[in-house]
């Protein structure tokens, strides 16, 4: 790729990032409502942990603090990871909603630039949103984070970016190939990830066949790694294998997602699926 071609792609990348920023700015009221909903959801999970003690599920309140941190970490991470996944997967859904898909696909831009431009905005926005939810969480609960290693948590969170983007790109194929039902299919994928990745419970409580799905879900390792860092003082050094595993999963999922997306785009052009708005 020549320098001028790279410059063109970089300009387009900023264009996608900026477009997403403008869309969120214009739909700010929706975003405020969604943020409020997310905060309420996370707080509800925190109070659920408190409730476990009140209804006698925890013997004399033992383990309440751990249960609360365990559940709240899961809830907060799910808010972040699902947003990044959702926004990457919905790169095509946005275009179908607005009727702009043909214009984007007609532009002389590589698909990797298109999808990563949208995904990078999702990462930045997801982090800001997670920080706000975290602030609300810390204000509502006295969390025992004495044993937390934030360096280890940051390492795993950083490494989680790659597989989550890969999963998002793979899922974005669904709205491309199924204009009417693809959006709902993407929601279903998100639901399965929630079920099998140990967001609110250890994988061991699932039936064996679902545990199998949990083992191949990258989110399982993100949640396990960050919980280890925050609850068991897992240092960055100790969590390097988890970060390596996540990076490896990303190294497979992102290229696989881009290749499959390219094939799906060819199919969509052959079947005339780009013009339908769903």
């Amino acid at each position, binding site marked *: 790729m020549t320098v001028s071609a790279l*410059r*063109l792609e970089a*300009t*387009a990348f*900023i*264009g996608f990032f*900026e*477009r997403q920023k*403008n*869309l969120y700015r*214009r*739909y700010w009221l929706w975003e405020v409502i969604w943020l409020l909903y997310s905060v309420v959801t996370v707080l509800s999970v925190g109070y659920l942990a408190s409730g476990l003690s009140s209804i006698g599920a925890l013997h004399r309140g033992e383990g309440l603090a751990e249960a609360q941190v365990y559940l709240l970490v899961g809830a907060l991470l799910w808010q972040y990871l699902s947003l990044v996944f959702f926004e990457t997967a919905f790169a095509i859904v946005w275009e179908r909603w*607005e*009727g*702009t898909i*043909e*214009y*984007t*696909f*007609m*532009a*002389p*831009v590589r698909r990797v630039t298109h999808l990563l431009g949208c995904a990078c905005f999702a990462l930045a926005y997801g982090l800001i949103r997670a920080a706000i939810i975290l602030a609300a969480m810390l204000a509502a609960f006295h969390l025992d984070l004495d044993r937390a290693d934030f360096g280890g948590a940051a390492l795993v969170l950083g490494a989680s970016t790659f597989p989550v983007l890969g999963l998002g790109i793979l899922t974005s194929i669904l709205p491309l190939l199924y204009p009417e039902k693809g959006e709902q299919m993407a929601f279903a994928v998100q639901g399965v990830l929630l079920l099998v990745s140990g967001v609110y419970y250890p994988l061991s409580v699932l039936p064996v066949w679902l545990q199998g799905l949990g083992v191949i879900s990258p989110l399982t390792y993100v949640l396990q790694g960050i919980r280890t860092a925050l609850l068991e003082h897992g240092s960055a050094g100790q969590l390097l294998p988890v970060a390596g595993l996540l990076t490896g999963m990303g190294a497979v999922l992102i290229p696989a997602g881009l290749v499959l997306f390219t094939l799906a785009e*060819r199919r969509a*052009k*052959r*079947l*005339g699926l*780009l*013009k*339908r708005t769903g």
Partner: protein
Amino acid sequence: MQTMNGNGTLPPAIEVRGVSKSFRPEGERRGMQKRALDQVDLLMRAGELVAVVGLNGSGKSTLLRVLATLTTPDEGTVRVFGHDAVRESGRVRRLINRVSVEASFFKEMSAWENLSYAARLYGRRGADVRDTVLTVLRRLGLARDALSRPMKQLSRGQQQKVAIARSVLTTPNLLLLDEPTTGLDPRSKREVQAFIAELHSGGGVTVLLSTHDLVEAEALCGRIVVIDRGRIAADASPAELRGSGNGHAVPTLEDAFLRMTGRSFEQEAEEAGEAAGEGGGE
């Protein structure tokens, strides 16, 4: 990125050879196919302004989509300035732009945000983008303050003018206009038509205009391609089309169209009206 042929001449702007395209209509079972294009051949020189006319569903938009690399043909070849539209689609996309009948914008975003985004996709940014936009919109009779308003607040005519500005912003060599004046008020229609003519004569842009409006086609284009049921029914100048057939000239292009295809635009409008009355429509 237009490249010369081996003999030092520019290749044709459009070279379509034996192109066919079929689709399965929505709601139809597998195996049911509608032939949208049937062995279409079309050659256009660089700098030409050609109209494609035909009834709804005749294949005009499919032809433009194939040229815009948005749909791949089932058979035949499509070349744009010598580049294969399927195998070299990236190169082709650098040379073209298209205005569709629906303006297609991010409706909550302002006109300027939409245009700035479109410019970036073609590698353009900065002050000169704004200058170009303002010049084009002034020429099209759109007030400057429209730029800062969300697209959803602009009228259909205003949106279509912004769509034309978007297409020009990318400095295409080939402009594909898919019924750009449909649904516009008479004044906006005239402004857009004048701009198309100016773009072609002054800017040297090759323009393929798909339209329902035979008067528009005749006023703007020296060459008209009639497409009917996916096939090219005629390809000639307006005068030749009126005089074609049995040697008896007819007064209007509408009459010529009726003679060539056995169908009229009036009849189509009536059928569309009946279909709408039955809860159907296109």
